[in-house]
């Protein structure tokens, strides 16, 4: 049975076309709408919430279970999340079968299961409609053009729940995502330390002249009582010998032999007090933190030498195409060098991943065999299409034939329209259109989103806004366009310079691009200074 599931914050369309299929004799549809009354009180809307990856899984499981009794051809389930107004569709279910009896039975059985096992909740009833707050800067994004990429990103978020974790040594942890909260095991610092080079004296001792009775260097531990008139020479970071002291800076002191004369006492005690940086048990690093050099230094300082991080995804990249040759070869007329393999390898390398890579001719039998033999533990399969005719259907057919469920088969965006997102078991497959700029866009938008959600990072990537530094001449194309650009921070705001881009096969822009401008479909010219949305790329 073919199953499609969407958990969406977008309204469910009023009409949903039945799937095509010669064997289909019945298409049974159900819409659940929000009633104007909940528990006896009249309401304006309901808010739905879901544990999305599990809800999808439970929906699928229920459908497959029921299909064992009532064989059907296809099922489409759409459930709204967020605020749904009274009268609007909260759930849509369509079931295709050869005969109506199975379709009705499966539909009814599914709705019962839904209300028992699928983790979706009516969060609260709203007395007034609260429109969801869209974060759009660009006015009037046509929904057909704008929603497609948004929907793909949302689908990827659902398909990529955080991966399992592992403990790794510090030298292998940079750039990885911490999955545990690390607390201070003891007060930081663990004792009162001098903040300067100088002389420790009693705070209550107003003498001007002191006898130097000891010397404390960093690393020394020499607890002792200081009496009035006594001082201890102490280095920066040295542990103070007792409480209620003040450190007089070396610059404010004169020393003759064992005698210290203080020229000037100030109010500052020049002490880093115990627990000042962090008290014992206080969180130093939160789960979801991307481990930087600084974070690793902090971990080292508290003995956290094997942090728990998300394991790296296992990835395989297949570059297909009859016209590609290795970069170190000279292409024959009609051939091109394979730049995508390098692009993919280096892109994934930014996240410490080392994908397996193979370059294959577009030989259907050979590729089908390759897909059958995939390691089931593989997380990410990237297939770069060749440029030959029908490449898109080719990859889609291959994946479907190998038992992958196709979630997305076209992006309403350019470059990168012939995108495929599919899944089999734990393996997420992305079919990428062959040209390099499309690769760059798809890697940065879709693969990056998948990696970020797998990683459990607290701050996944997203669109930001900035201003154009020059006029941008778009061609008014209906599809949403991602335009290579260079962004930088200037006077506290992002500025974006669009890069020259002649065709989607154009590689020259890739060398400089560090952002993708998001240009709404139908946009003609954007004057310099326009506020635009952009997606920053890793550099």
């Amino acid at each position, binding site marked *: 049975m073919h199953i499609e599931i969407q958990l969406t914050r977008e309204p469910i369309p009023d009409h949903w076309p039945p799937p095509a299929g010669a064997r289909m004799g019945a298409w049974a549809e159900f819409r*659940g709408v929000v009633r104007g009354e909940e528990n006896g009180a009249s309401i304006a809307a309901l808010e*739905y*919430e*879901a*544990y999305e*990856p*599990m*809800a999808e*899984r439970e929906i699928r499981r229920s459908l497959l279970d029921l299909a064992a009794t009532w064989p059907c051809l296809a099922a489409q389930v759409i*459930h709204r999340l967020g605020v749904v107004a009274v009268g609007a569709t*909260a*759930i849509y279910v369509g079931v295709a079968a050869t005969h109506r009896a199975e379709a009705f039975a499966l539909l009814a059985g599914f*709705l019962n299961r*839904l*209300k*028992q*096992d*699928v*983790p*979706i*909740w*009516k*969060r609260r009833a709203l007395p007034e409609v609260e429109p969801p707050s869209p974060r759009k800067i660009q006015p009037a994004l046509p929904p057909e053009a704008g929603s497609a990429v948004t929907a793909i990103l949302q689908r990827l978020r659902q398909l990529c*729940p*955080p991966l*399992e*974790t*592992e403990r790794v040594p510090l030298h292998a942890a940079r750039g990885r995502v911490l*999955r*545990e*909260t690390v607390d201070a095991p003891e007060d930081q610092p663990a004792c009162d330390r001098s903040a300067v080079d100088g002389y420790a004296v009693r705070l209550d001792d107003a003498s001007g002249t002191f006898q130097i009775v000891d010397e404390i260097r960093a690393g020394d531990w020499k607890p002792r009582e200081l009496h009035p008139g006594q001082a201890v020479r102490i280095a920066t970071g040295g542990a103070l010998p007792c409480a209620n002291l003040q450190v007089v800076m070396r610059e404010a002191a004169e020393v003759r032999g064992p005698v210290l004369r203080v020229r000037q006492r100030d109010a500052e005690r020049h002490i880093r007090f115990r627990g000042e940086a962090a008290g014992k048990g206080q969180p130093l690093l939160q*789960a979801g933190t991307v481990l930087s050099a600084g974070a690793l230094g902090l971990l080292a300082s508290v003995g956290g030498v094997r942090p*728990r991080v998300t394991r790296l995804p296992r990835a395989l990249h297949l570059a297909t195409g009859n016209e590609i040759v290795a970069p170190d070869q000279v292409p024959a007329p009609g051939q091109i060098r394979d730049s995508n393999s390098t692009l993919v390898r280096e892109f994934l390398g930014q996240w410490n991943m080392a994908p397996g890579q193979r370059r294959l001719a577009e030989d259907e039998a050979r590729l089908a065999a390759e897909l059958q033999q995939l390691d089931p533990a593989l997380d990410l399969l990237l297939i770069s299409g060749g440029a030959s005719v029908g490449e898109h259907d080719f990859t889609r057919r291959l994946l479907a034939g190998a038992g992958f469920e196709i979630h997305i088969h076209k992006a309403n965006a350019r470059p990168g329209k012939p995108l495929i997102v599919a899944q089999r078991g734990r393996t997420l497959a992305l079919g990428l259109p062959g040209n390099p700029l499309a690769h760059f866009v798809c890697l940065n938008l879709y693969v990056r989103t998948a990696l970020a959600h797998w990683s*459990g990072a607290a701050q996944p990537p997203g669109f930001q806004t900035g201003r154009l530094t020059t006029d941008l001449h778009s061609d008014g194309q209906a599809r949403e366009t991602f335009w290579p650009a260079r962004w930088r921070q200037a006077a506290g705001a992002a500025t974006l310079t669009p890069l020259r881009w002649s065709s989607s096969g154009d590689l020259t822009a890739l060398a400089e691009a560090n952002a993708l401008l998001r240009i709404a479909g139908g946009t003609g010219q954007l004057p310099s200074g326009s506020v635009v949305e952009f997606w920053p790329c890793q550099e």
Partner: protein
Amino acid sequence: MRILFFAQLKDITRCAEMQLTCAETDADGLWRAVLAAHPGLEPHRGSIRLAKNAEYAAPDARFTEADEIALIPPVSGG
């Protein structure tokens, strides 16, 4: 391990998730640790199902550091 809360449970815990550090344990051990952090969940325990890595957990399931646990209160979709 990561513990997720949903729906009305979030109102009780005042958070959507928490991080729990504990050795491998069973459902009872997990509940003890969760209730120690959020005693307000106690009255709801009987109606909450545990999920492990986005699937309902079997009664004899073991939970480890690597698991994502969710507390599933009675569902109300549709």
